[in-house]
């Protein structure tokens, strides 16, 4: 074992070997090497505290990268500053240096550092602590999260000059208790937001509101902090930061850091059925490449899209290791839903080098430095160029030659990316979008804000006008959540509102998964207390996913083990499962219905506005492991899920219906819907699941295609898509005609079509007819 991992072979050699193996070479569509880059340097800015400069010199830093100097200058001039440079470009120093310098000059000053996850907070603490030690100054720094013991909290509140926490804790544990954090809020000079690009969609929209509350509380206590944010590359850092912070920002986006070379290998699983465009399972292909890397002694991380796939791939990779007589424990899974102690153990194993292969969901994507990983296998395009670079950045952080392998799924977005590598390697066109004014989210935070401090007449919440703020407050008063008394609105409910608001999604009522297998209390997963004799909580599942993963007879996967759901107690949000050893897993289907509630805008055949989306999970398939063949079917009877959101929709007009025939149009529209969903997801930098798509035949009009924000209230995707609709149709056309399949496949037209309906032609014809009506054809890229 020791010899196996004694020396890490060069990734260049591994890639060379792949290219010489015909079976692998035929799947590799693209090998690029990002060139190494020389550094650009600058001296320490004059404004930087001399003690700090001396300390930095002692750590071997004689000068700064140009972007570091620019960021420090800007921040010390008390400008809100946003830094946009690649992974491993010395980003931390850009906010460590100005904050420490300032706190050395203002010993009463306080700073708050926000990281998107708890694990990342813990990890970043050690780096900051190390720098502070070198200054010899007594700048007391603490992490504050759900794991902070009660007796340590007082100390953090009283003494912490720098507090590292996450948005969830700020929201539920700090702001509602601001009167206990007097020292922090009276003297708050800095708020640092690392990983700014992580705050998109729902999470970002929530954070925008948490920051509105933070500024409100800081103002009450007499402080006005400067924000420093750091982001991976996105198209609109200035717009995004200004929307989130509601302050003008200075953007620094020219990296002066030297970079090591990195091979990026694009892999497209081979087509096994050209007629239907079916490709070999990407998981098998990812397994093949990852297994080769791990057995060659290259420390490797594999990113997959879902918890289910983490479990599947861990199972497969361990089987490979056993077959080659290697300890299967060298490969571990890592994903949300694992209990914290379990995750800590894995993180330690990675750092200590006892674990050589990790299969992770994107919980690990954000800048956790987990050690000397050299290669990264990304199984399935993670939804954005920025995510790929982030995930790739997990491997090869130490300037050595690194490797990233991107394995495309057969889904349309992946195929689009793998077949159009220029998009990937060119300037990122992706945008981070949030909507802090999303009504559902906004109202939740106005409630939290009113709990923290009564609202005064004439007050504005964030960028809302006085009238809008008043309208929301009066609405809450009408529902007896607030009490208006003279010029004030007071909180008037016995609950603690932050507990009912989760920043990560709109609904917060998780289901618990309870193992009732005999002897389950000896299971090694973690240390939650037993609920009753022999039973134990093994995981939590969010409300929406529960409908598709915890229905009765579902196979629930956890840590490479399979459990069958015996009973779902829907009322009490509990699923009782028993360990089983099946040869299949389950996959649930649902049916969608969209109803227009209000049309807010129309141009030609397309509109946007508010809709009600009703989803009913109707049944599930049993799919065999390994072969992935369908081995059975079952019904599911669960309540419908209803969601008010915003949508853009296209109604096919009468002349086109007559020309092409109604049935043909409906079927073609399903294909167009799939294609346009693909290009829209790519363009909006959102997860495929953030955007819903449905085709409907309303009685009063022609067939309709809907694209909707897949969360209550929406985050503004629909309105943006309304503006982009024509260029997106052109891109969708290019996607369909450019696809390697002959008759239309799941990668271009999707799987929901009637395959008898005649290939790609009707969809292309339909797009052309609509574009004809829309006038001259602008191009997206």
């Amino acid at each position, binding site marked *: 074992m020791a010899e196996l991992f004694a020396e890490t072979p060069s990734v260049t050699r591994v890639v060379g070997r792949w290219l010489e193996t015909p079976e692998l070479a035929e799947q590799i569509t693209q090998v690029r090497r990002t060139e190494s880059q020389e550094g650009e340097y600058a001296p320490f800015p004059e404004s930087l505290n001399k003690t700090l400069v001396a300390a930095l010199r002692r750590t071997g830093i004689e000068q700064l990268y140009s972007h570091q100097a620019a960021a420090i200058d800007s921040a010390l001039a008390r400008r809100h500053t946003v830094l946009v440079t690649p992974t491993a470009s010395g980003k931390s120093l850009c906010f460590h240096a100005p904050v420490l310098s300032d706190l050395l000059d203002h010993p009463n000053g306080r700073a708050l550092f926000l990281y998107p996850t708890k694990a990342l907070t813990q990890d970043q603490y050690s780096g900051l602590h190390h720098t502070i030690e070198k200054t010899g100054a007594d700048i007391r720094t603490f992490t504050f999260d759900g794991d902070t013991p009660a007796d340590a909290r007082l100390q953090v509140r009283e003494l912490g000059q720098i507090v590292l926490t996450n948005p969830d804790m700020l929201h539920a544990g700090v702001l509602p208790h601001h009167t206990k954090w007097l020292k922090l809020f009276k003297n708050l000079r800095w708020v640092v937001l690392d990983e700014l690009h992580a705050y998109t969609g729902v999470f970002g929209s929530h954070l925008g509101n948490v920051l509105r509350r933070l500024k409100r509380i800081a103002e009450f206590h007499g402080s006005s902090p400067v924000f420093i944010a750091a982001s991976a590359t996105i198209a609109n850092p200035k717009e995004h930061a200004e929307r989130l912070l509601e302050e003008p920002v200075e953007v620094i986006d020219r990296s002066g850091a030297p970079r090591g070379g990195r091979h990026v290998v694009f892999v497209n699983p081979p087509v096994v059925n050209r007629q239907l465009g079916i490709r070999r399972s990407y998981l098998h292909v990812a397994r093949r490449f990852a297994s080769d890397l791990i057995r060659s002694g290259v420390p490797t991380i594999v990113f997959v899209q879902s918890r289910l796939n983490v479990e599947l791939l861990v199972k497969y990779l361990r089987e490979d290791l056993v077959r080659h007589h290697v300890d299967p424990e060298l490969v571990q899974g890592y994903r949300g839903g694992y209990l914290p102690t379990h995750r800590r153990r894995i993180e330690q194993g990675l750092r200590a080098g006892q674990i050589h292969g990790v299969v992770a969901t994107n919980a690990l994507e954000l800048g956790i430095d987990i050690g000397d990983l050299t290669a990264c296998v990304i199984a399935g395009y993670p939804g954005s160029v920025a995510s790929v670079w982030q995930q790739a950045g997990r491997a090869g952080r130490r300037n050595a030659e690194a490797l990233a392998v991107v394995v495309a799924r057969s889904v349309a977005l992946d195929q689009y990316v793998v077949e159009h590598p220029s998009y990937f390697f060119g300037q990122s066109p992706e945008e981070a979008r949030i909507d802090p004014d999303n*009504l559902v989210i906004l109202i939740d935070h106005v409630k939290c804000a009113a709990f923290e401090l009564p609202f005064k007449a004439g007050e504005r919440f964030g960028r809302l006008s006085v009238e809008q703020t008043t*309208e929301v407050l009066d609405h809450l008063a009408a529902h007896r*959540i607030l*009490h208006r008394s003279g010029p004030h609105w007071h909180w008037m409910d*016995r609950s603690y509102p932050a507990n009912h608001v989760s920043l990560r999604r709109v609904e917060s009522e998780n289901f618990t998964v309870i193992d009732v297998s005999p002897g389950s209390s000896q299971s090694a997963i973690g240390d939650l207390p037993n609920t009753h004799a022999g039973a134990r909580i093994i995981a939590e599942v969010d409300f929406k996913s529960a409908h598709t993963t915890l229905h009765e007879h579902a196979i629930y996967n956890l840590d490479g083990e399979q459990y069958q759901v015996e009973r779902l107690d829907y009322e009490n949000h509990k699923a009782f499962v028993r360990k089983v050893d099946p040869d299949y897993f389950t996959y649930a289907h649902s049916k969608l219905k969209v109803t227009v509630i209000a049309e807010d805008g129309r141009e030609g055949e397309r509109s946007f506005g508010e809709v009600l989306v009703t989803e009913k999970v109707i049944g599930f398939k049993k799919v065999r492991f390994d072969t992935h063949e369908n081995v059975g079917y079952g019904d599911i009877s669960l309540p419908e899920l209803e969601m008010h959101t*915003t949508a853009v929709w296209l109604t096919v007009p009468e002349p086109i219906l007559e020309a092409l025939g109604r049935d043909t149009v409906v079927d073609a529209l399903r294909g167009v819907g799939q294609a346009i969903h693909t290009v829209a997801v790519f363009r909006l930098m959102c997860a495929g699941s953030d955007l819903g798509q449905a085709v409907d035949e309303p009685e009063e009009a022609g067939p309709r295609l809907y694209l909707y924000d897949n969360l209550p209230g929406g985050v*503004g995707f629909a309105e943006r898509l309304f503006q982009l609709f024509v260029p997106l149709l052109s891109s969708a056309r290019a996607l369909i005609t450019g696809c390697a399949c002959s008759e239309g496949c799941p990668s271009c037209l999707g799987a929901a079509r009637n395959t008898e309906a005649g290939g790609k032609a009707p969809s292309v014809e339909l797009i052309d007819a609509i574009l004809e009506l829309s006038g001259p054809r602008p191009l997206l890229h």
Partner: protein
Amino acid sequence: MTLRRLSERLARHGAPGPEAPEPELARHAHTGPELSWSYTETPFGRATVSAERLDAGPFLSSRRPETATWRCHHPLERLLGDERLIGFRPEDALYLDIEATGLSHGAGTFAFLIGCAVVEGGQVHVEQLFVPDPTDELPALSRFLELLDARPYLVSFNGKSYDLSVLESRLVITRLLSRSEASLKLRPHLDLLHVSRQAYKGVFGDTRLQTLERAVLGLDPKEREDDVPGSLVPALYFHYLRTGDARHLEPVLRHNRTDVLSMVALAAHLVDLLRAPCGDAEILLNLGRAALRRGLPDRAARLLEDALAAGLADPLERLALEDLVTAARRAERPALHAFALDRLIDLLTPHEATLLARLTRARQRLRPGVAGQPPSRITSP
């Protein structure tokens, strides 16, 4: 979603969150005369007060028959490890109990009723400060600070983690505390819950104030007959805010008044008990064990001797003897140490061979001259 047509959208989204069901208010409606309020001027306007004076006798003279054979010095401060309580007298304290708008002590929970009591000239003065509208919080808090500043000690029941947290938070929000940053929590404060837990743990089932009222102070349960469940209290206040109808608040005031008065009596009782420990064997055992934990082996040895003398049944007797072994050894009382060892050895079951060996060795290490004679005050059963 844009904010255009906000009101329409707000209407569509319906109720903005889980609403507390309207409580069964009728059951708690007051049928008697209207509440009578008086007003006290403060620098921030007038505070709304319900004031009352009662003869202090019944509260302070729940004093126990003097059966104790010895007295403890500084018992409170030693038991709680809080030197600021040296010299505490029940007459020198402000007794405090609040009714608030929520059970959490986040910034948005405020006290709408601050129940205070002081003992003065043989009378108990009860002063309940009411907040008739959230904007009237400032005068109530201001009056509370006046009352507090006039007394060196504060007495509460669980006030350390609840009442004071709520009040302190609101003093910050109303900016009454903003300049000094002085913490209410730094004041000498006797939290009766903490003392009760030490003295009564396991004796009466639980150590809630209402349990102790009945079990320790002998309060007639009828006094609490129409008591409001604590969980309903915020809803009753909110109902009053919405309707201006104060009838439902009357039971809340009565509940708060009973709590404050019980605290006066309980404080007097506990101070007496700790100064001159006597009575129930289980209480003496609790106090003895607490003294041992606090590093007071002499006191612990005496209390445990008393507990054993008063008669303890099996599991507790053994517990008392185990602690007595430790206490006597630390207090360097070899005769008592030997006695406790001998009696403990007698109680061992045949399965406890290892422990038997250990205890026997400990017994042999004591000077051979020490006889395991029971000290005079302990009578063997």
